[in-house]
């Protein structure tokens, strides 16, 4: 049994938990002298101060203890290593049972596709909430094959899911450096400075335009913001599962962004309407009427088609950029395509496809239901 933290001299407690400063700052109370205990501190606090803050002595001590417990948990979250996450089949909006559930492992990237209103957000919400058959879809989320203690839903140290949604913005008025440091400190990171620069360097490998440590986060472009958020999620965040709601094809290298998350052994789910992004994933979950209609593995043939698609996509991006830059679009299209195919003539990519021995197998044409 350890000694009651409220009976230790404040100096000792501050020595062990430097983060305890926040406790006094958050209520706007002066820091206790080194040699007095929290019990004494509370006992000697002026009645008027307590009145002003709407505090009671006993409550102050209880809050203090809870705060220290929180700091302890932060230092050692006792994270469950995730080997797999399973979503069991539930039902669609009409109450019909879903075709299938699915299981994902760290490093998996899956896309979530389907028309607007087909239930993409609901699926991501089920995962974020760690549904245990208690949401409208009736799905359950299993971690390592087992159901999850619903208490985890409310714990801040053990959030499983990081979410990057489409309309996210930075609100705080801080430089990139200060911003990442703030996040790292809240995460209880030891060497904050080193991590800050690692995040910025990493963000720069996926951002189109360079990000500088001293730039204000609110001054970043859409692509830069997105790159910084992804690098931060990969390196500072603890959440093993990352839900992404679309990555726009502008100002960010999507392939590298996904690779970064995979390298960090995150489970990545991307809801998207973009065929390129959808095919970049190893698997795609197709939704209809609120239910999972199909789970498809991306085949080697699809990956080949993806390469051609990426050339076309790259051409569209470079044309968009040229228009933004007040340039004209008179370059022969072949050349635009060649540039976007990494220098190889686009015809070659096509020819390679055509001569790859892949016959127009009627069975493989637009495979699946229509």
């Amino acid at each position, binding site marked *: 049994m350890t000694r009651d933290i409220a009976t230790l001299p404040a100096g000792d407690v501050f020595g062990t938990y430097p983060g305890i400063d926040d406790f006094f700052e958050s209520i706007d109370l*002066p820091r206790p002298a080194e040699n007095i205990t929290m019990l004494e501190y509370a006992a000697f606090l002026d009645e008027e101060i307590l009145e002003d803050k709407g505090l009671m002595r006993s409550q102050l001590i209880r809050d203090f203890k809870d705060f220290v417990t929180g700091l302890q948990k932060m230092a050692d979250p006792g994270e469950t290593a995730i080997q797999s996450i399973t979503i069991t089949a539930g039902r669609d909006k009409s109450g019909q049972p879903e075709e299938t559930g699915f299981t994902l492992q760290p490093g998996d990237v899956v896309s979530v596709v389907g028309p607007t209103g087909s239930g993409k957000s609901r699926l991501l919400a089920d995962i974020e909430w760690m549904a245990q058959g208690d949401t409208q879809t009736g799905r359950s989320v299993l971690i390592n094959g087992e159901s999850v203690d619903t208490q985890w839903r409310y714990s801040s140290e053990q959030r499983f899911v990081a979410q990057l949604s489409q309309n996210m913005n930075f609100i*705080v008025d801080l430089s990139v450096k200060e911003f990442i440091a703030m996040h790292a400190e809240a995460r209880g990171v030891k060497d904050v400075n080193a991590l800050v620069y690692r995040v910025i360097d990493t963000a720069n490998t996926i951002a189109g335009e360079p990000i500088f440590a001293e730039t204000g986060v609110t001054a970043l472009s859409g692509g830069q913001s997105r790159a910084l958020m992804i690098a931060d999620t990969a390196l500072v965040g603890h959440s093993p599962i990352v839900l992404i709601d679309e990555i726009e094809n502008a100002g960010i290298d999507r392939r590298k962004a996904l690779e970064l998350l995979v390298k960090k052994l995150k489970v990545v789910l991307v809801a998207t309407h973009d065929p390129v992004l959808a095919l970049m994933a190893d698997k795609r979950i197709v939704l209809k009427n609120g239910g999972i209609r199909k789970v498809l593995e991306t085949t080697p043939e699809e990956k080949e088609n993806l390469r051609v698609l990426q050339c076309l996509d790259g051409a569209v991006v470079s044309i968009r950029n040229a228009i933004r830059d007040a340039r004209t679009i008179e370059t022969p299209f072949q050349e635009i395509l060649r540039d976007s195919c990494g220098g190889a003539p686009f015809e070659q990519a096509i020819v390679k496809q055509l001569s790859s021995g892949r016959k127009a197998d009627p069975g493989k044409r637009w495979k699946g239901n229509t």
Partner: protein
Amino acid sequence: MKFITVAGPPSSGKTSVIIRALEHLKAQGQRAGVVKFDCVSTLDKARYTTSGIPVKVGLSGHICPDHFFVSNLFQCHQWGRQQGFDFLFTESAGLCNRCAPHIRNILAVCVIDNLSGMNTPWKIGPMLRLADLVVIAKSDLVSQAEKEVFLFRTKQVNPRGAIIHVNGLTGQGSAELASLFFKAKEVASVNETKLRSSMPAAVCSYCLGQTTISDQFQMGNIKRMDLSEGNEGVQGEGR
């Protein structure tokens, strides 16, 4: 009847969050009503009415809004019972942040939003600190990093409460919130229940309608800032 107090800073998303959660309660055949407390005026009555939710509005006007809340609680609870509601919610904006409408043994909810800034959890006081359930709104609009820091600071201020994210626009998290409302206790009467924190007031001449700014016109409970050299202007803190 289950009884739930919802508080939160102005425009934090209280009404949207309640409406979203009530859709789920309604779908399960539950009848719910809302009493909305505000100071000068409110537009939320129309929003509730449009959503088919019975609502009563209380405007505190020249009375301290928290005191107004407490002195009307009994009638509000009675109204809810007469209407035969399964759930009654009170919605109030904590305007000076010193007090909270939360009552012992009655589910206390605080709604705060990510857009209000990273230091907000530290500024709110008992309304957040004493809540059983903290709902964080508008988290789809900020970066994951800010969301995590905001959550961390909320947890610092209220280490015991359950914290959930609800999106008042898309409804993400609202079904989950509704399931927590279901766990609220039945409250047969609010008579003799106790507030979770005290609600002091400085009764002075200005409370009573005085408008002239002058020493001579100040009477009653007055507190002065200390602006002398070496003092931060905070009175009574002994710094």
